[in-house]
């Protein structure tokens, strides 16, 4: 019958306008409805798996009372297990096109359906007991319809695979399909399996007993493995992964028969299982984030401090663990794998709002239902939590009661409720902080890995460029171009404005070059990029032929830099500081002694050189920085506002040194506001205005034209 139907459907899709994928969708939805009907029908879901008809509290039934032989029992259990899994695969197959799913359903699913048909009678025996098999019964018909629908889905998938062999039939895909099928079995494990196979474990999974610890470890291993396995998968595959997990959570939740008011899924982690299913299937963000902030906290507590006192292998206990592990893992993994975006604080506030509604509703429902039956949604009506904290007295001392009628009185433990509410809100904020911290840590780590990768690539590029440079021997320290700036531009951070824009300049050996501009014109920015303090956005900068980007160490070895602030360690002595700098520039002992003595005499600092720098005056510190910048006899001496705040003598000494340094064939490049000084000691000057080079001028020529530097400067800068 299944085959006939299947061929009919294939024929229909080939010879009419009915889309093949639509047929699959109809079958998927039908299978879902039929299966849901069974989950909620009067027939116990336990019956599907519990082949021994074991009562939870009893010991395992002796072998003599088994329906089948041991091997056949195991086989039937396995078959039922696989059937439920393929039902879930079948339900999602109408909406997901993954080849893995199609191969698994097509081959393994079809095989399972065939086996179900072969062992149909044995299943009926398992449902009804030996001699009581009824085909025309609710359970029998349900089973038949399920098998037919699943059979149709599997055959249609098999047909798709076989008619597109090139796409589907390759070793990696088949291997992947087997792996996915095998790993999915964990999610669909029958809750009675452990009990059926091993009987009672003899222990309770609480108070960190070994079995409790294994459960805790399992939770985290499950989460980490899930993350590692799915991290690099396509978004579609991740969606499928979560829909199947959510569906299995849903199946597992209804595995245990829940009856009466207490059986309603209103307890926090129970609501999570239902909500996760809808959140993942229909992409409901609000529902998801409520679970993310609220359920995860509750589930974490439930996993660490379970309130179960029954055997670890009992169906109730396994059900408890399935529910709470899902409630804990699914939301966290959903965000970690980016199926849902990382929540913002706004979403958290929304979650608090929904939680508040839930809390108030539960307080009212608890107060109402307890007039008829004992219920305890979210532990609002029992002393489970207050007992742990020693607050039973407080809970029962502050009661607010409203008498509705003769039989109904609504009782609220108001102070206890407020405290529980506030406590949970605090926990939510703590959870937020933990999430936030973890997000940042992961982001940082992956950013670092990306940057490291980029650094390696850059290094390869730089090495190639270095090789090329060395081959072409472009190092051009010949006294002609000591500083070469080509189309340099600089932007800070994400700003779209350029602090310096398309700046080009060449300074020769033996020159004292002045760099003028108003405050914020871009002088310091240019200098900081030139000496390697700041990065270069665009363009190139060379010192003695060495590009600061590709040959930073060689370029820096040729630079002496005096910054616009006193970069000195106040707790060191002047000598220690100079030695520290000399070490950084690898200056040999002999040259170090010789130069230091020379400059100490020149700048009259010999008396103070062994004092701690904190006792130095402003001028002394500046002179110390000047000495340290000259200790390695740099070819290019760059000074940023070197004369600010100096007395006339100190100023004179530094100016003299600048001139002499240039006279020895080196370059002196300095920025200043003091136009008279620039005019007096510079050979050439550059004026920069709002990040753009205005012009380069020779002082001698200006003098010939009868133009003072002040007039020139004002002429250009006044344009503002």
């Amino acid at each position: 019958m299944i085959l006939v139907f299947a061929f009919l459907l294939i024929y229909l899709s080939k010879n009419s306008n009915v889309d093949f994928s639509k047929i699959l969708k109809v079958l998927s939805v039908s299978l879902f409805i039929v299966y849901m009907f069974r989950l909620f029908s009067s027939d116990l879901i336990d019956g599907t798996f519990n082949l021994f008809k074991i009562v939870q509290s009893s010991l395992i039934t002796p072998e003599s009372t088994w329906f089948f032989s041991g091997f056949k029992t195991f086989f039937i259990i396995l078959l039922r297990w696989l059937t439920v899994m393929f039902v879930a695969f079948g339900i999602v197959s109408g909406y997901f096109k993954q080849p893995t799913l199609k191969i698994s359903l097509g081959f393994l699913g079809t095989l399972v359906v065939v086996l179900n048909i072969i062992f149909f009678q044995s299943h009926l025996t398992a449902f009804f007991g030996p001699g009581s098999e009824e085909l025309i019964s609710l359970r029998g018909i349900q089973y038949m319809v399920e098998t037919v629908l699943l059979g149709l889905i599997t055959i249609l998938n098999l047909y798709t695979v076989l008619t597109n062999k090139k796409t589907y039939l390759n070793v990696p895909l088949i291997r992947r399909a087997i792996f996915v099928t095998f790993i999915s079995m964990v999610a669909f494990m029958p809750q009675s399996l452990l009990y059926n196979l091993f009987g009672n474990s003899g222990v309770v999974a609480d108070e960190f007993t070994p079995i409790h610890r294994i459960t805790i470890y399992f939770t985290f291993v499950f989460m980490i493995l899930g993350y590692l396995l799915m991290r690099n998968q396509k978004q579609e595959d991740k969606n499928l992964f979560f829909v199947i997990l959510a569906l299995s959570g849903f199946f597992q939740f209804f595995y245990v028969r829940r009856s009466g008011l207490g059986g309603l899924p209103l307890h926090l982690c129970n609501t999570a299982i239902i909500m996760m299913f809808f959140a993942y299937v229909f992409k409901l963000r609000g529902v998801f984030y409520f679970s993310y902030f609220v359920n995860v906290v509750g589930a974490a507590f439930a996993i660490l401090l379970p309130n179960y006192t029954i055997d670890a292998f009992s169906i109730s206990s396994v059900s408890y663990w399935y529910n709470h592990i899902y409630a804990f893992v699914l939301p966290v993994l959903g965000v970690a794998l980016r199926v849902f975006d990382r929540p913002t604080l706004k979403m958290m506030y929304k979650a608090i709002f929904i939680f508040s509604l839930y809390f108030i509703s539960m307080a009212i429902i608890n107060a109402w239902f307890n007039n008829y039956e004992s219920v305890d949604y979210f532990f609002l009506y029992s002393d489970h939590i207050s007992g742990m904290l020693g607050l039973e007295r407080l809970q029962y001392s502050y009661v607010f009661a409203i008498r509705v009628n003769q039989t109904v009185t609504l009782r609220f433990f108001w102070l206890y409720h407020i405290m529980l509410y506030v406590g949970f809100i605090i926990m939510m904020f703590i959870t937020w902080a933990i999430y936030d911290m973890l997000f940042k840590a992961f982001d940082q780590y992956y950013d670092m890995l990306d940057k490291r990768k980029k650094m390696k690539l850059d290094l390869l590029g730089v090495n190639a460029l270095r090789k090329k440079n060395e081959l072409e021997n472009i190092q051009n320290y010949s006294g002609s171009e000591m500083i070469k700036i080509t189309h340099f531009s600089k932007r800070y951070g994400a700003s779209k404005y350029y602090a310096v824009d398309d700046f080009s300049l060449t300074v020769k050996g033996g020159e004292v070059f002045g760099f003028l501009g108003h405050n914020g014109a871009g002088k310091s920015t240019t200098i900081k990029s030139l000496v390697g303090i700041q990065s270069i956005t665009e363009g190139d900068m060379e010192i003695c032929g060495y590009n600061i980007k590709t040959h930073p160490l060689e370029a820096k070895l040729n630079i002496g830099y005096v910054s616009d602030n006193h970069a000195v360690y106040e707790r060191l002595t002047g000598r220690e500081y100079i030695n520290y700098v000399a070490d950084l520039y690898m200056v040999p002992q002999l040259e170090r002694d010789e130069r230091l003595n020379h400059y100490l005499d020149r700048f009259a600092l010999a008396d103070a050189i062994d004092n701690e720098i904190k006792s130095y005056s402003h001028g002394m510190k500046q002179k110390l920085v000047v000495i340290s910048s000259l200790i390695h006899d740099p070819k290019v001496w760059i000074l940023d506002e070197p004369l600010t705040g100096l007395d006339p003598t100190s100023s004179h000494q530094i100016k003299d040194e600048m001139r002499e340094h240039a006279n020895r064939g080196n370059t002196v490049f300095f920025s200043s506001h003091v136009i008279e000084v620039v005019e007096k000691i510079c050979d050439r000057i550059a004026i920069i205005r709002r990040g753009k080079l205005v012009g380069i001028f020779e002082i001698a020529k200006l003098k010939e034209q009868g133009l003072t530097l002040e007039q020139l400067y004002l002429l250009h800068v006044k344009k503002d």
Partner: protein
Amino acid sequence: MIQLSSKMKLKITNHKRFIANLALRLLALVVVSVVMIFMLYFLNNVLYIPVNVYFIIFVLFVTQLTSIVACTTGLMVDLYASKDNAILLSFPAKHDEVFTSKLLVFYINEFLKNLAFLVPMLIAFGVISNLPITYYLHILTMIFILPLLPVLLAAILSIPIMFIRQFLQSRNVISLILIIILGVFVFLGLTGLLDEIPTPIRIVALYNKFVTSLTVFMQSSAKYALIYANIGRLLFGINVLANYGIVFGALMILIALVVLISRPLFFNLASHTSEYAVTKKHKGKNKVSKNLFWTFFKKEFTISIRSSNEMLSNYVLLIMFPFIVYVLNYIYIGIDRSTFGTKLVIAFDIMISLLLVTASNTASATAISVEGAEFVLLKTAPSDTKKMAWAKVAFNMIASTLIILLIFVLFQLSLPQFSPMDIWLMFIVVVFVNSGHILWSFQIDLLNPKLADYAATASLSNNENISKSIVIGLVLSIIFGGVSAFLLIEDYASGWFRIILLAVAFFIIRFYLFSNFLKVYFREIEF
């Protein structure tokens, strides 16, 4: 206002945000008040500590005493020794205005602190004691008066302390003698106190004695609570007018003292700290270092040795460590314990040790920031200046490991009841976790160095990297304490092995992360 907004990060950009901010603060006030109700209930009904008028006076006294100490130390740094004084005093503003603005910042700080703790506690007290509406009206007045008291008192007290500090700064020998004398007194006091505890300690009996003594102590301390006793009484409606009179009278006197004494001395003290002082000469010789690492290490060592105050404040918790561990363990060993109890004591010791040790890693959490403007040197130097980070890490690890070693030697000598094996296994755990924490703290600063802030103020106050490092240390202590308890209870011998394994794994992970982050991010630091 600039002082206020820069130091407290107040951002009143628009009314909507202001109202939202206000609503959020009010909500926080309500939430904290509820938590306080629970706490007071817990104290009263579970711990049997009487929550009454004496309790309130006692809490007022203790919290305000803490505020006075905090304000005094804070003012010493921010009022007199702040680097921004040099700029502020040169502004065309009166010295009085600078002085008042600085006090105002402290006042608002105290005001917010009280809103976060004291006020919710007073409200909670009112709720559980069913006090009348007038009680809450008095709280409303006290919200504004209470923060004024510690600030004014601190403004007066900080002056003699500043003078003493300046006197001692140039007299190292006297300082050392005073510290030793203080240490001896503290130790003698502690041992004297501990001798009062009868051994073996019976927790229940001791607890009853403790509660009785605390009750008596709270009642008798109310006599010495001075103005806070009056505030407590007026809150309860006892002699309201007379008590208000005393409180306002005291406020007037304090304001007069501040205006007459502190205000004129402010300029004197503030300018004194920025005046140059010629220090003694150090013998010096030019010498080439063996390698770059040694250059950085030598620099770090020299600066640390010469910055004894900073060193002391960095490791102050470590100095207190032996006392705390001694007191706690003296009590533990006095109790008749089961094997289970002994394991818990060890886990608790691990937690406390880590808590104190990691809180002392502030130097690592500011290792790059404290380079300030000097970082320019590292950026312009033609060498692998990343080694500076390794030198600092090595220095911090060696310094703290040596101190921890000394503490554990003292631990073993003073508490022979503990198995030496346990003590040294604990030492291994603490050293590895602490070293991992040093690397983590350093990484925090590496990713977000406050070079410009430090270059401008030379101060590390309000440094968020320090706070982060301390919080991480706290979390690590709790995690390792909890895991240790868990593993030791499960199986003692393998428990130790697994704890050490975890500590080593933690260190290795941090080492891996730090070295990678350093490679990638050090070169990106710009100044």
